[in-house]
């Protein structure tokens, strides 16, 4: 302890020496392993996260926390085994300091033990499944997005507020699918007209849509990310169901990656999210403008999460002054989350999942006639955490 104090004192007195001493201790660059779904029908999700992450690095002059950043990008091809192999390669061969990128919970859950075992921080720009929020919470896991249930809890609350009586639920048969419908039901007070779990990656929903028609609900709520959602909504409209019932969506179910291919059929769709294009904070305005300038398209909620993941790493590396070998210090710095998030204020809970606001959004046209999400009224939830934190042993 004493030598450290002495060194700090000396450093304060003799700036030049201190700087060189600091540099000797700090790493000379930050290595980030980025693994995401970059091909197939759900590629748009991973591509948005990657593009926004790289945009943040670029706006920082190619640095994270003042150190030159090296981002190693891999495509998990929507396959858990490929994701796991890439994690292993990034951690064992490339010796990265941080891992990030994965879209899907099943892939992340298969791969992330590689990071935990080697004490590499995993900054999740999307998947935040319930097991890692509760009993299996881990000091090396930070969800910079939102707990898997949260959008669906907000959607359930919204369905209750709107007075829907019978809602039909559809989700893929995997961890995040189950989390999502559990979340919706936690806050929805009406009747569940049907609850169907489809195969993950299913692209043809003819049989499910026939069931929906027969059940005659007021609304359908689906958790179908990426290509699954695009196909579902197109087929939902093609079957003529949009005339008879409302379609409720989580934020990513009606975001730019879905709106672009589906088109005007999305107008008037309500969805719930922790972020929107029009959130009025300065960080968000800069992000949206820069993203559009760089990539000639509007960012999705996935992009906002990728951008925040890079900002979180940036803030932590800056906070520890580049000494990324000191895992405890990095962890404290990550948890402090000292950066301007594009979602506005948020903080990490004891399980390192965010506590934040959730908004109701509706798809409408902007001044240029493009389809965009606009926030409506007051947040549905303010400073909302998750239902699993009490099972987590971390303080």
């Amino acid at each position: 302890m004493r030598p450290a104090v002495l060194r700090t004192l000396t450093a304060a007195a003799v700036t030049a020496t201190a700087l060189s001493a600091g540099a000797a201790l700090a790493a000379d660059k930050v290595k980030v392993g980025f693994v995401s779904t970059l091909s197939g029908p759900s590629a748009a999700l991973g591509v948005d996260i990657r593009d926004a992450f790289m945009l943040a690095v670029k706006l920082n002059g190619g640095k994270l926390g003042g150190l030159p950043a090296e981002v190693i990008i891999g495509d998990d091809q929507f396959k858990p085994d490929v994701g796991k192999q890439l994690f292993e390669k990034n951690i064992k061969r490339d010796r990265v300091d941080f891992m990030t990128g994965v879209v899907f919970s099943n892939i992340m859950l298969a791969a992330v033990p590689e990071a935990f075992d080697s004490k590499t921080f995993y900054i999740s720009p999307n998947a935040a499944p319930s097991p890692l929020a509760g009993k299996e919470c881990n000091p090396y896991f930070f969800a910079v997005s939102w707990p898997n249930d949260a959008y669906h809890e907000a959607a359930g609350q919204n369905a209750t507020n709107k007075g829907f009586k019978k809602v039909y639920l559809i989700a893929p048969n995997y961890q995040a699918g189950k989390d999502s419908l559990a979340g919706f039901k936690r806050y929805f007070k009406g009747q569940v007209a049907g609850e169907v779990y489809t195969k993950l990656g299913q692209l043809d929903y003819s049989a499910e849509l026939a069931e929906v028609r027969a059940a005659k609900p007021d609304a359908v709520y689906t958790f179908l990310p990426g290509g699954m959602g695009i196909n579902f909504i197109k087929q939902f409209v093609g079957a003529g169901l949009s005339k008879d019932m409302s379609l409720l969506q989580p934020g990513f179910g009606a975001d730019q990656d879905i709106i672009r291919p589906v088109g005007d059929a999305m107008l008037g769709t309500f969805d719930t999210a922790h972020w929107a294009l029009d959130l009025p904070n300065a960080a968000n305005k800069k992000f949206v403008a820069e993203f559009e300038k760089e990539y000639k398209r509007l960012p999705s909620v996935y992009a906002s999460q990728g951008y925040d993941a890079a900002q979180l790493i940036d803030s932590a590396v800056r906070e520890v002054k580049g000494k990324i070998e000191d895992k405890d210090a990095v962890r404290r710095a990550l948890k402090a989350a000292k950066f301007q998030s594009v979602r506005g204020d948020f903080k990490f809970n004891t399980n390192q999942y965010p506590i934040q606001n959730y908004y109701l959004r509706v798809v409408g046209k902007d001044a240029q006639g493009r389809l965009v999400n606009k926030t409506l009224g007051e947040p549905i939830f303010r400073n909302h955490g998750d239902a699993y934190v009490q099972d987590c042993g971390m303080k």
Partner: protein
Amino acid sequence: MSGLLLLEQSLNGLQFGLMLFLLAAGLTLVFGIMDMINLAHGSLYMVGAFLAAWFVQLTGSFVAGVLLAIPAAAVFGMVLETTLLRSLYARDHLSQVLATFALILIINEGVRMVWGSDLPLSAPAALSGPVELLPGLYYPAYRLLIIGVGLALALLLYLLVTQTRMGALVRAGASNREMAMAMGVDIRRLFTAVFGIGAALCAVAGAMLGPLLAVQVGMGEGILILAFVVIVIGGIGSIRGALVGSLLVGFVDTAGRTVLPHLFREFLPPQFASAAGPAVASIAVYLLMAVVLFVRPQGLFPARG
């Protein structure tokens, strides 16, 4: 379950089954006549879909794009047959499986290099809405088109096989290859022609399903497994078997996703039903295959008596 729902689900099963038939018909002929296991059959389906999406982009017309893609895919199939697959006929099944599996990987990466990992393809706008078939029964217009195309091609194929000289040669080849050769059938030309027809049928299936599913690298692998299930159920080498097998698989898959969960909810506690429903639905088709194999190991309509 109401009558209308049952009718709508039957149409769904029919639509899926007919598209499977287009794949299985080519596969069963290649397998039956040439005794060749072609795992790369799904790649022809993928190439057909990519060609269709590409031609639709170039011409701006869905119909023109699909019509151009069909001969293009047939040519691709025939070139593949004459240059590569021909040398595999004499080999054992294991070598064929290995070589055609390699071909899947090569074609996947080849397509990725030429077109990228996916291409957009949408149904024509005029067919994007529903049609009222009966009072209260709405059905997507595009799916009706698929059913129409599927039925027309099934009929055409039936006439080709039963009424034409080429069909007679195909049937002769399927029931006894050596004898057909001994009778002076030019087997090489016949094989190439059959392969071209198979590829063209794959292209139709790929182009028609593209707007409903997605035109992407790897799209052929999942459906290839089902096509194999179909020909095992139907009997190898038999077009009639392929048709019956496809429709059976189409109906069982649709019923598995809808009727089974209903039944489970009736008879089982809800937490078990919600877990078992999707699990059993995804294996329903394979259960059907197991039952058929147990009762009739040679398939329902084997080409070789």
